């Protein structure tokens, strides 16, 4: 059994016990424990079920690489699935449950899959679920969804907060082990501004666990002294619980800070995502130990040798009483030695190398541990826990020589430098056959915007395996970085460590070397996704030669651990099956994040009221207080209508329209874009921007204009007012204000940079109100202050003045067909002005109206709406707007495009009005069908609806649409099938349904 031993545990505080719950069971741990170490201390070895076969799985590692120990953390609003127990610090009140089991962790029905495993090989889904086609949706997918998957999705809204933080450094060191600290010290001594981040809560990394000696003292002492030294420096920032998540172009780096995961009672955000720009990155991320591929290597109780050592040294936890160590390198001997020193039993060390190990092996022998060279594990026995190990020759096919009882296996297949961050931006690797690892090729580093290397691996992450070499490399690589920054470091005495007499590692990709298929089918490569040696070999036989294809076919390395343990073993297995060298097969691509980060940290503070910026007009509070129903228009929320008690939205719209046409309506038009165009060349510029002639517009007058893109398509429309000889004010659509301002600036800055024109977007300077209806003039006269009579202020004219004491600019323009004034006042006075209009309009029963009434009234008048009649493929000519296209101008933006053959094609659908024969309303987006079918056997289309409404003014459905030969077919009827069957017939009519002569607006 796994248990807490009497002494030891450098990270735990035995005076502070904490209580937590796992699967409803109350357990005790100590402050400083991870959830994994605390579970193991309580003999909770079984922590989950595997993804595919539901095999019992235990903790296998002690850090970020852990594939098995994923748990559901927390409850309710703080529930989060797939949390790694090995990187979760335990705290009082922690609640966790195991995942992917039914009904219980100990008894799981899905485990039947393990007996079916020979029928569930690699690519099983692809092969099995192809036919019959209909089965996928109705049989296969529901079944797979039920049985597969890891954690559950949270049901409640996340109760924690998150935020971002922008920070800038010269050098960021990722990894707080001895290499990272030494590199940081070197860079900091050169005066660089340095950030050092360590993903765990503690400095020091592996060296302190392994008891390395540095400068004649313990690694612990070196770490403490170096951290203290760095802390004292102004130019150094030290952060624990922060992981380097991803490296991106231009020195962009994400630091994932877990602020309060270890203590949720703390105020503040749970995670903080540091968005860092740095000139140089030092990746001192160490290495990860590889498992060995032998039958039963996934049975709970089989752990990485380094993890067994970590649990013992860091947390005082023994994985078993009798641990068999199996290895192909010297490092695993450290585990055997540490276990023995702690008084635990190590019945045997199986060293797959015929020639055995070096100095450490000798030390183990001297301690009385039995060491067997050239031997391997044939098979691990046990179900939910290791019970024994069968021994064989590594060189053979698995003939069992002996079976030895044990309750733990510590395995080591060698070490892989953590090259992830180095690789994110394209750093290349070399295969080091001597050390059996991929390591960074410093001649092919990831390069920054200047073509200069910017992610420097250092220490073990750079493939240096001994303490002495690690420290020397960290110093040297940091000096490289200092030089790249153009700085120089004072001469430092690099710390020294004793050289180690180690025997070379030997590659062991399968154990035993000639393992039969039965053994290979029980040798796991990827624990989380249940990929075995036999699966990768099958993929190779089926023709998957590329490692990237094999990865996707078998799902090797595609789980949440992204193959931290399985990648190298998997590709070595593939290369063996393909009879190719490992470097020829290559690795899969390392992509950020290093380990999964919370989605919420990416969103940062963008939630609830700041999820998205909502723009508000000066009158917004009134709209909200008066029950407006809002619709989004760009980032604005505009009132769609103002329903009264008991009214439906349709009824409200109808009331607003009828009252406006009958008496008086008000529209908050503040959102309309307002752009000033000024300069001696403003007229020339306006003529290029708009399809019509704007330079001839007289001061004091307004003109409706169209703007097209370079490709000829109608882009925006609005009323232009000429303010003075050199100044125009352009109204744009609500959504178009920023886009059109940018469009203007782009042309001015890139094409016509020598034209004397300035623009300014003054949209928000003004609150603008449309005062609409037969009584519009009366209400303005009641406010008083300026002459708004027909004579003084004619249709399509504007004037400055005061109204009721407000500084106002009044435009006599109409989008509704009624007598109408649009009045702009300074935004800060908008609300009071609105109130004044409501008060003055009370006697006329004034009604504010929303965007829907606006739309219906403009449709009754046959006015187009950008976004309804246009969709980015429509030119003004399609809409019969030829009257607004100047024939006299030599050029305007879009003119040439409009002359191309397909733009002048007479078969382009043209805008017409549509009147339903039965008075009903054509559904939005309906298409008109013609005779015959097209090449695909579909009915031919001859037109589509662009705007369709019930017109309360006319008491019937009206619409506008684009129809083939439309304007030539006045009076004909066309058919619009409905989605739910049946169809509507509509008569093609003129698009102006209301007051075609325009007498009502010009009074």
């Amino acid at each position: 059994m796994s248990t807490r031993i009497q002494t030891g545990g450098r990270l735990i505080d035995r005076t502070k016990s904490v209580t937590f719950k796992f699967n409803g069971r109350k357990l005790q741990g100590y402050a400083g424990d991870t959830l994994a170490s605390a579970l193991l201390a309580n003999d909770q070895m079984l922590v989950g079920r595997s993804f595919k076969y539901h095999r019992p799985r235990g903790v296998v590692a002690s850090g970020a690489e852990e594939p098995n120990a994923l748990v559901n953390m927390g409850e309710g609003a703080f529930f989060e699935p797939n949390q790694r127990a090995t990187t979760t610090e335990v705290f009082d009140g922690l609640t966790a449950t195991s995942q992917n089991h039914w009904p219980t962790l100990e008894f799981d029905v899905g485990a039947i899959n393990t007996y079916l495993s020979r029928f569930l090989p690699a690519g099983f889904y692809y092969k099995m679920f192809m036919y019959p086609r209909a089965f996928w949706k109705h049989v296969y997918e529901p079944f797979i969804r039920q049985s597969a998957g890891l954690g559950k999705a949270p049901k409640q809204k996340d109760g924690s907060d998150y935020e971002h933080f922008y920070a800038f450094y010269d050098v960021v060191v990722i990894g707080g082990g001895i290499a990272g600290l030494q590199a940081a010290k070197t860079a900091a001594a050169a005066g660089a501004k340095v950030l050092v981040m360590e993903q765990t809560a503690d400095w020091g990394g592996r060296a302190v666990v392994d008891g390395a000696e540095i400068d004649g003292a313990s690694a612990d002492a070196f770490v403490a002294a170096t951290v203290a030294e760095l802390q004292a420096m102004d130019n150094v920032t030290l952060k624990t619980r922060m992981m380097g998540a991803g490296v991106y172009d231009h020195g962009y780096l994400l630091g994932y800070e877990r602020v309060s995961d270890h203590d949720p009672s703390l105020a503040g955000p749970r995670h903080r995502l540091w968005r860092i720009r740095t000139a140089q990155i030092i990746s001192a991320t160490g290495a990860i130990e590889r498992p060995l591929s032998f039958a039963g290597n996934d049975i709970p109780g089989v752990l990485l040798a380094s993890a067994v050592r970590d649990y013992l040294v860091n947390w005082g936890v023994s994985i078993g009483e009798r641990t068999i160590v199996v290895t192909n390198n010297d490092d695993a001997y450290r585990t055997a030695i540490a276990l023995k020193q702690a008084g635990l039993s190590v019945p045997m060390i199986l060293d797959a190398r015929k020639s055995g190990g070096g100095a450490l092996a000798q030390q183990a022998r001297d301690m009385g541990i039995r060491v067997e060279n050239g031997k391997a594990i044939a098979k691990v026995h046990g179900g939910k826990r290791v019970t024994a190990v069968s021994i064989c020759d590594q060189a053979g096919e698995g003939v069992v020589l002996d079976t030895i009882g044990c309750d733990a296996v510590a395995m080591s297949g060698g070490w892989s430098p953590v090259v992830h961050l180095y690789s994110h931006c394209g750093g290349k690797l070399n295969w080091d056959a001597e050390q059996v690892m991929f390591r960074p090729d410093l001649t092919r580093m990831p390069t920054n915007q200047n073509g200069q290397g910017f992610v420097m691996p250092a220490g073990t992450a750079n493939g240096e395996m001994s303490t002495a070499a690690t420290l020397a490399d960290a110093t040297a690589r940091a000096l490289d970085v200092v030089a790249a920054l153009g700085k120089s470091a004072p001469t430092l005495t690099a710390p020294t460590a004793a050289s180690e007499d180690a025997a070379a590692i030997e590659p062991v990709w399968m154990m035993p070397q000639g393992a039969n298929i039965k053994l290979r089918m029980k040798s796991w490569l990827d624990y989380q996704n249940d990929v075995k040696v036999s699966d990768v070999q099958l993929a190779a036989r089926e023709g998957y030669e590329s490692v990237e294809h094999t990865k996707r076919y078998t799902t090797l390395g595609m789980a949440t651990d992204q193959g931290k343990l399985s990648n190298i073993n998997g590709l070595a297995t593939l290369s063996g099956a393909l009879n190719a060298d490992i470097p020829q097969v290559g690795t899969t691509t390392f992509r950020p994040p290093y380990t999964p980060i919370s989605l919420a940290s990416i969103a940062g503070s963008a939630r609830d009221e700041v999820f998205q910026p909502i723009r508000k007009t000066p009158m917004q509070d009134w709209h909200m207080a008066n029950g407006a129903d809002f619709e989004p228009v760009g980032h604005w929320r505009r009132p769609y209508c103002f329903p009264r008690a008991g009214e439906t939205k349709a009824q409200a719209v109808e009331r607003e329209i009828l009252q406006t046409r009958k008496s008086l309506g008000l529209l908050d038009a503040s959102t309309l874009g307002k752009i000033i165009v000024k300069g001696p060349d403003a007229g020339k510029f306006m003529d290029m921007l708009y399809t019509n002639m704007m330079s001839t517009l007289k001061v004091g007058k307004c003109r409706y204009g169209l703007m097209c893109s370079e490709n000829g398509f109608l882009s925006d429309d609005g009323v232009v007012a000429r303010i003075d000889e050199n100044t125009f004010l352009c109204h744009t659509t609500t959504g178009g204000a920023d886009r059109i301002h940018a469009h203007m600036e782009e042309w001015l800055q890139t094409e016509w940079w020598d034209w004397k024109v300035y623009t300014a977007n003054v949209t928000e300077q003004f609150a603008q109100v449309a005062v609409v209806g037969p009584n519009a003039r009366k209400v303005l006269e009641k406010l008083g202050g300026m002459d708004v009579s027909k004579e003084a202020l004619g249709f399509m004219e504007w004037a400055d003045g005061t109204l009721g004491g407000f500084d106002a600019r009044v435009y006599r323009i109409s989008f509704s067909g009624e007598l109408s004034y649009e009045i702009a006042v300074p935004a800060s006075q908008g609300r009071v002005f609105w109130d004044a209009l409501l008060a003055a309009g009370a006697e006329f029963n004034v009604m504010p109206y929303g965007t829907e009434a606006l739309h219906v009234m403009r449709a009754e008048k046959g006015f187009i709406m950008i976004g309804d009649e246009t969709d980015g493929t429509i030119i003004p000519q399609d809409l019969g707007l030829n009257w607004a296209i100047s024939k006299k101008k030599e050029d305007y933006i879009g003119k040439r495009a409009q002359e191309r053959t397909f733009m002048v094609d007479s078969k382009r659908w043209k805008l017409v009005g549509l009147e339903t024969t039965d008075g009903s309303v054509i559904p939005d987006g309906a298409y008109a069908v013609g005779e015959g079918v097209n090449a695909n056997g579909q009915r031919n289309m001859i037109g589509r609806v662009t705007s369709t409404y019930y017109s309360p003014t006319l008491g019937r459905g009206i619409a506008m649409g684009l129809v083939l030969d439309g304007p030539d077919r006045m009076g004909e009827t066309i058919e619009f099938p409905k989605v739910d069957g049946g169809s509507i017939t509509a008569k093609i009519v003129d698009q102006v349904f209301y007051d075609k002569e325009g007498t009502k607006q010009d009074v």
Partner: protein
Amino acid sequence: MSNAVTALNGAKSTGYVTVKEAPLTGMITLRGTFASKGFAKMVKSVFGTDIPEQRKVSKGPEATVLWMSPDELMVVCDYAAAQDLVAKATAQLGDEHALVVNVSDARAVFTLSGAQLREVIAKEAPVDMSQFEMGEVRRTRFAQIAAAFWLEAEDHARIICFRSFAEYMFNLLKNASQPGYEVGGW
């Protein structure tokens, strides 16, 4: 004038940094050729200060001039004085090609006060706040919206954004400055 109100009526939040919506503030957009003597003279005589250097602020007795782009300045002044200053500047420029617009109502202004205000800004704006100096102005974004800010003192900053975004900006700053949300040591 008594009718004029700010977007948020002077909203305030007291976290580890105090966030306040400033009272109505005069703002004038100036566009012109900085190298032109006439333009520079106008800035000096009307606003009492020189054209600021790139990304800098220059302060006159009654107006602060912010560098916005190679041909655009923003004058910050007393709200009541803005219209007169616009008229004066326009008159003095005469025929010179330039643009002077009163945009006092187009924006909301916020102040941040407190020793840790740099850190609050660094949560929302991609700016190196460890290097940002007095006398600098930065046009940038705060989370998802455009904004500009400058320091008036080591513990006092001013932020401007479009008026319609006032509530969003206030909530951003309020959330970022809640007690317990300090970053510290960066």
